[in-house]
């Protein structure tokens, strides 16, 4: 996979930003995103989920960083709330790019909406370009659909963290990893069962049985944890697959521990 390592001045040859445009080269639309931000996200963030944020200073204000979070909810609200948290609370609000499964690019309607809202297909080359060349913030959910499709009884138990691809991407870009523990999304839209025939019919990734047609007003708590620098292991650490797996496991363990700690503190699902 050495093709992901571009020569030094590749960054200098990035396309210039055309100020007249409202859509980026990734397909992200300022207008659509702004509209959601002002209406739905604003409401969900302040009034519905009453998001509380801790450790926002762990999100660097310059340079690329890879944000890693737990993932839950049939229609996961966590990504948009993390993005909103950075816009609301950070000293230097930055745009967040979230990596989404390739499924979203292929599904009509979602394809259009997800990319306009800042979703980028989860391809290693995309993550590398965003982190290394464009020096942006990227949010990944290493659990992927395994996290969102899990049933309510398995809540807050992290699934397998993929194959450690996110660690490799961060190492190649020499970007820090910021783990995030997020409490509340599991209860906002829990899944009680899956309906396979309907899933086949609609060709969605899953077709869940949920308690309500919308989000339940669970209290959200987002904790940004201390960043893990990825330039501490010398040259080309990504060739050491053992190290990659170890780091991935460490990130997972940190988030899991933090989740247990936060759940122990939580008195009520709805009031926090």
């Amino acid at each position, binding site marked *: 996979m050495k093709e992901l390592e571009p020569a030094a001045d590749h960054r200098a040859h990035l396309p210039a930003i055309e100020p007249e445009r409202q*859509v980026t*080269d990734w397909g992200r639309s300022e207008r659509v995103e702004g509209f959601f931000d002002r209406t739905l996200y604003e409401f969900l963030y302040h009034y519905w989920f009453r998001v509380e944020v801790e450790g926002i200073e762990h999100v660097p204000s310059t340079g690329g960083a890879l944000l890693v979070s737990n993932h839950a909810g049939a229609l996961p609200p966590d990504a948009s709330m993390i993005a909103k948290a950075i816009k609301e609370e950070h000293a230097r609000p930055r745009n967040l790019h979230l990596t989404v499964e*390739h499924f979203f690019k292929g599904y*009509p309607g979602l394809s259009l909406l997800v990319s*306009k809202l800042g979703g980028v297909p989860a*391809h290693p*080359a*995309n993550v590398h370009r965003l982190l290394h060349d464009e020096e942006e913030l990227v949010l990944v959910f290493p659990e992927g659909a395994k996290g969102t499709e899990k049933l309510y009884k398995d809540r807050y138990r992290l699934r397998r963290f993929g194959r450690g691809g996110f660690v490799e991407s961060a190492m190649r870009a020499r970007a820090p990893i910021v783990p995030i523990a997020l409490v509340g999304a599991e209860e906002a839209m829990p899944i009680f069962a899956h309906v396979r025939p309907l899933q086949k019919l609609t060709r969605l990734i899953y077709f869940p049985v949920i308690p309500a047609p919308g989000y339940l007003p669970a209290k959200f708590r987002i904790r940004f944890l201390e960043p893990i620098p990825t330039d501490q292991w010398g040259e080309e650490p990504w060739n050491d697959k053992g190290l990659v797996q170890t780091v991935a496991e460490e990130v997972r363990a940190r988030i899991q521990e933090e989740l247990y700690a936060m759940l122990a503190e939580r008195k009520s699902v709805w009031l926090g």
Partner: protein
Amino acid sequence: MSRVLITGLSSYWGGRLAQELEKDESVEAIVGVSTEDPSCQLERTEFVRVGTHHALLRRIVHAAEIDTVIDTRLIVDSATAPAKAAHEQNVIGTMNVLAACGGPDSPVRKVVFKSSAHYYGCERDDPSFFTEQMRRPHPPRTRLESDIVEADDAVQDFAARNRHVTVTTLRFCNGLGPDLHTSHSRLLSLPAVPGILGFDPRCQFIHEDDIVGALHHAAMNDLPGVYNAAPDGVLVLSEVASLLGKPYAPLLPPWGTSLATAAWSAVGIRVPEEVRRQLRYGRGLDNRKLKMSGFRFSLTTRETVQEFAAALRLAPLRESGEAPYRYEREVEEFLRWSPSVRRDE
């Protein structure tokens, strides 16, 4: 001093490139081959009507001591030729051209091959920006794409076997310009820009002048390897529509799209297979390698679309203008060789 052979002289790019090279004093001789007459006026380019038979091409290459071969023949739009002819041209033709350039005694030192971004295909799990080293994640799904992949691979194979020859492959994204007639330009000329419901694909368009410019750049410089030729800026189709001042009309259904396009072709709107895939998934190319080699795109994708919009607005006014150039062998030969023609020297 260089002596250039252009294959596919009758194609738009072949002709334009020849015109461009003619202005260049350092280009000593320009020979163009094609099975059809050139479509633009040429001063000193010599036209030979010949297909891609390798023995004939080889004789031309040796006799004229050609050192640079620029292959612009590739068919990149399946609406322009039937599948069989496209296969013949793209796969067999490329093989023959390469055979004519190879060999230990060949005078050829440089081959420039005009390839296409169809090499990368359009898939759900594509990266958002293809770089030159990336391979498509799945085997080609359309005949045109598999022919282009085969041709491009043959060129890479030729480059590996002939280390003394500088082989440049330029993979162009979709071209757009007032004089370029492609499936895309026809779709964008409709009263509304058609699309697939629920999709707003990313697309890149290179201006026709930049296509010629990139080929010229590759002919004049030593650029071994593969280069993506796509300008800065990746637009979404709805953005293209608004630049053209037209509504974006996603009228094709997301499921059963191929049936719908078949119905559309009955009423004269042709959406070839490879374009259909682009309308669904879109494609973006990383152009930094070509930019690093010193090439400057004159227009971004956005400016290319704007220029195309201007050309569309002018089109009804221009139609009554002068008749297009027609190649007449006798006239051309008279003008070129007759002692009676006064040349300013």
